[in-house]
């Protein structure tokens, strides 16, 4: 599924000068048939001895029966799933791996990390007290185990600031997601803040001015049989999931700090099962 998802996102990367390739422990015959069937146009590299996988340090040491592909007869030594972004000089610029093998960054999630300004945002701007909000997300459709980014862009008028995390004694900007059952979230990511001098009270406090994006990564359940079953039984094998969130903040200007405010936000994500057929038995790796 990841290989197909990456094909669907290919043009976004190549337009930015980044080419794509993937490495698996499969044979060249397996990859040839898979690529033809799934219309994969970027290079799929066969690493049947797991040499490249070892050289990049991403060999999954779990060779138990439950960590085998295919029908269980395939050889072992697969890779941890994840991405390296390598610059033109051959140095690792970024990497995106998950601690849990079944959770995977979507290609759009990776793209959003590399080019945050290019993620699609909602057209609607939400006006709240002393600021304007706009929500967005890396993906609108995701599969079980996918990691997608939800975010809110906060735009502040000139002269207005909100407090950043770490501002003691003040109510900092805070985003909380009310994740649906079995969904997981990662801690919110905030942009760098600026230390503001407050001479009258001899304090320096971290603040956000002009704009700030708060992003939270959401992990769609990837190991829950009940969740898979609910999708399997749903029409079109998909479910629309709503993820409510709350943004809390206190806006201030040079003269006054306004009352703390709270805004309710909502993201919608379609979770869909995707079934990619296996290659023919003669193209499968043998043990």
């Amino acid at each position, binding site marked *: *599924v*990841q290989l197909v998802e990456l094909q669907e996102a290919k043009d976004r*990367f190549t337009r930015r*000068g980044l*080419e*794509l*390739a*993937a*490495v*698996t422990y499969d044979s*060249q015959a397996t*990859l040839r048939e*898979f690529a033809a069937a799934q219309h*994969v146009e970027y*290079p*799929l*590299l*066969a690493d049947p001895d797991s*040499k*490249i996988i070892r*050289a*990049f340090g*991403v060999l999954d040491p779990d060779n*138990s029966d*439950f960590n085998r*592909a*295919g029908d269980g007869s*395939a050889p072992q030594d697969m*890779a*941890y*799933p*994840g*991405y*390296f*972004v*390598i*610059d*033109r000089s*051959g140095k*690792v*610029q970024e*990497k995106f*791996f998950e601690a*849990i*093998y*079944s959770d*995977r960054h979507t290609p759009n999630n990776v793209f959003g990390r590399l080019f945050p300004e290019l993620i699609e945002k909602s057209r609607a701007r939400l006006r709240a007290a002393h600021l304007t909000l706009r929500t967005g997300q890396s993906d609108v459709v995701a599969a*079980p*185990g996918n990691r997608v980014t939800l975010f809110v862009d906060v735009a502040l008028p000139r002269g207005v600031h909100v407090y950043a995390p770490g501002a003691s004694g003040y109510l900092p900007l805070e985003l909380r997601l009310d994740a649906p059952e079995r969904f997981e979230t990662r801690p919110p990511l905030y942009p760098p803040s600026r230390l503001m001098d407050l001479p009258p009270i001899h304090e320096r406090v971290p603040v956000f001015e002009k704009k700030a994006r708060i992003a939270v990564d959401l992990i769609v359940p990837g*190991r*829950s*049989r009940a969740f*898979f079953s609910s*999708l*399997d039984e749903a029409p079109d094998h998909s479910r629309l999931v709503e993820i409510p969130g709350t943004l809390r903040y206190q806006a201030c200007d040079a003269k006054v700090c306004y009352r703390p405010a709270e805004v309710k936000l909502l993201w919608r994500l379609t979770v869909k*099962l*995707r*079934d990619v057929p*296996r290659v023919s038995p003669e*193209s499968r790796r043998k043990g």
Partner: protein
Amino acid sequence: MRVSGAAPHRAARWAGGVAWFLVVVSFSAPGSRSADRPEPPEVPVEQRGLSIGVGIPAFQAPDQWNRPRDFASLSGPRGLVLLFVRSADW
């Protein structure tokens, strides 16, 4: 215990598969109430793979068209996104 591959489409298959159900039952721990796949031990993800800033090792491998490929032949003007996956035939 890992019940099967992580890819959702496989899970879809075993959701309705009697054979898989029997496998799950036979490997479930006694007294286990949940059929969910338990989480494997947490691995320090930042230690996984080459570190940021490190040069990658030279490599060569055939692609699906049986062309030998190395980094120079794969990279775009701003570099390469290299995805490692478990298997295309999961």
